[in-house]
């Protein structure tokens, strides 16, 4: 009896299994097609995650890059800052009105910052003089600058407007009269004024923050909308429907044959939505800021269906959204360590995944079956919000802030969630900010 060597053995088995095949069910291709479709959707979802994450990082990085690389003088119109920082002082009411006009002029001649700076030097004495002296000073200063070429006309225009506003101002003081007169006598020549203005501009730049970066957490408590969600009309895509289907599968055959006679107790809970985010602010003036960033929100809905036969099913839906908020903030009150501000704006959010897990139990509360369902969320969720917030400097560049307000989630054909049930909500946001530049 000869032993088979490995080569002979291989040939023997290879020949035997060369065309070996096993029959498959008729619907096997359909099952595979569905599995492949799910896999493709999951891949697309992950691509969405990456795209959304990359977009957020890109926006944040480009925003800060722009802010850091842009020369500070372009970021902060010096006059606007001066006026905004002093606007809460009653004595400077006229300064504010004059500056507003000046700012408009400054926009027209945006390329000529040096001349603009001279405006501030001149406006100051005008605001502290009485109306007649103001008119005189207007004439004086017009003469002083009569030899300034080209766009210097804006300065004289500004002075006229500033003076006009000052005429209506009741504030006047003899002390200021004398000081303003002295000031005019020593009014420097235009060239030295330009140099001086540059120095002052630098001083202002050093004192100003150039924006902040924050991490925050936000919650939203929806206002009742009067819709009773328990035992709501079941649409095929709803959690209720799938829970009911699951329970029906587990109840006894005799009972399932008369499903219509079985009553169900349906409980559904929408978890309080929490968002996490990173945001940054770009000041557009001393009073106004543009705030944007990125946020992640998870919306969780849980449901329970119980039949009269005591079999039950519980389900949990998790919806994950990534969004980009865009808000305009106005600083209402500002002190070195404390600020109060209002914001208004909106958020665009993209649902990146919806995961549903259903567990069914028999009458003895023993787990019978579980089902896992995952899909993508189409479309975008748009929302509008308005908030009021306070910021408190805790340590050096770090400050804590809290914002509260209202938000409206515009119906955007999104899957059922806390937001679709409570489109109006009161929001509260807390976070920590790191301010760039000096406060």
């Amino acid at each position, binding site marked *: *009896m*000869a*032993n*088979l060597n*490995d080569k*002979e*053995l*291989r040939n*023997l*088995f*290879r020949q*035997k*299994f060369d*065309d*070996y*095949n*096993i*029959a*498959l069910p008729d619907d*096997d*291709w359909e*099952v*595979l*097609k569905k*599995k*492949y479709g799910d*896999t493709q959707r999951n891949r697309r979802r992950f691509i969405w995650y990456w795209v959304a994450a990359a977009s957020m990082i890109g926006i944040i990085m480009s925003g800060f890059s722009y802010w850091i690389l842009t020369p500070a003088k372009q970021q902060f119109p010096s006059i606007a800052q001066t006026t905004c920082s002093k606007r809460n002082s009653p004595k400077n009411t006229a300064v504010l009105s004059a500056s507003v006009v000046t700012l408009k002029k400054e926009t027209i001649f945006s390329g000529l910052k040096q001349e603009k700076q001279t405006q501030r030097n001149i406006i100051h004495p005008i605001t502290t003089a009485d109306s007649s002296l103001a008119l005189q000073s207007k004439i004086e200063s017009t003469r002083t600058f009569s030899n300034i070429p080209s766009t210097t006309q804006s300065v004289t225009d500004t002075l006229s407007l500033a003076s006009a506003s000052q005429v209506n101002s009741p504030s006047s003081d003899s002390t200021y009269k004398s000081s303003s007169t002295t000031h005019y006598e020593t009014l420097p020549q235009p060239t030295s004024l330009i140099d001086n203005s540059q120095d002052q501009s630098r001083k202002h730049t050093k004192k100003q923050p150039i924006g902040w970066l924050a991490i925050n957490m936000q919650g939203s408590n929806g206002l009742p909308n009067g819709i009773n969600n328990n035992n709501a009309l079941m649409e095929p895509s709803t959690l209720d429907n799938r829970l009911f289907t699951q329970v029906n599968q587990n109840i006894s055959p005799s009972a399932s044959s008369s499903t219509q006679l079985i009553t169900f107790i349906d409980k559904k809970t929408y978890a309080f939505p929490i968002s996490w985010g990173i945001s940054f602010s770009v000041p557009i003036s001393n009073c106004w800021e543009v705030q944007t960033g990125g946020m992640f929100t998870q919306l969780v809905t849980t449901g329970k269906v119980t039949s009269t036969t005591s079999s039950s099913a519980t389900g949990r839906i998790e919806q994950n959204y990534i969004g980009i908020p865009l808000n305009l903030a106005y600083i209402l009150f500002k002190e070195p360590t404390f600020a109060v501000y209002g914001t208004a704006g909106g958020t665009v959010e993209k649902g990146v995944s919806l995961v549903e897990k259903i567990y069914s139990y028999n009458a003895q509360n023993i787990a019978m079956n579980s089902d896992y369902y995952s899909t993508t969320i189409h479309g975008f969720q748009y929302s509008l919000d308005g908030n009021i917030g306070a910021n408190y400097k805790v340590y050096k560049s770090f400050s804590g802030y809290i914002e509260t307000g209202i938000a409206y989630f515009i119906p955007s054909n999104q899957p059922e969630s806390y937001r679709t049930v409570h489109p109006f909500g009161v929001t509260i946001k807390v976070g920590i900010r790191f301010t760039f530049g000096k406060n």
Partner: protein
Amino acid sequence: MQRFEIRNHLYQQCMYSASDEAQLINDCKQQVAAAQQQLYESYARKMMGVCMRYVNDYETARDLLHDGFIKVFTHISSFQGEGSFEGWLRRVFVTTALEYLRKNDVLRESYDISTSYNLQTEEETIIERISADELRAIIGTLPTGFRTVFNLYAVEGYSHKEIGKLLSITESTSRSQFARAKNLLKQKIVARYG
């Protein structure tokens, strides 16, 4: 998009011939659904046979078959036309089966054999006589580790060195497992058909 739809329609009208394999592969690379279905129909039963040799459970093998085809559809672009397509396909399914076995830690199963046997010409006659299904059933009764090494070496044609790399075992372990699998198989064949 429209081009693919037209092509899909055409493929539903007429099946690929054996000489169209290159076209079939190209269309699968472009994710043409009809071509994917055609590929499935051409190879599914055969690949199911491959999967069954490794897991010996119909439903598990079917899951592996689906996983394997999903891999094929997703990564078919990595097939550069070198060697036979069926060989490439078979490697995908074998790898899928091995991943499953590793994941479920069934390769660690041990089986103690005290006596040693060699397959002899009598067994060869028996093997030639019995059907592939019966032979597969006997192989399926081997412990998973033995079965895997036996399939890889005797049927797929891998060397012990390659098997060692695939299963993260040493070459000598692979040889030893194969020898033991062969002996056990002889015992079973003789007991059933001898």
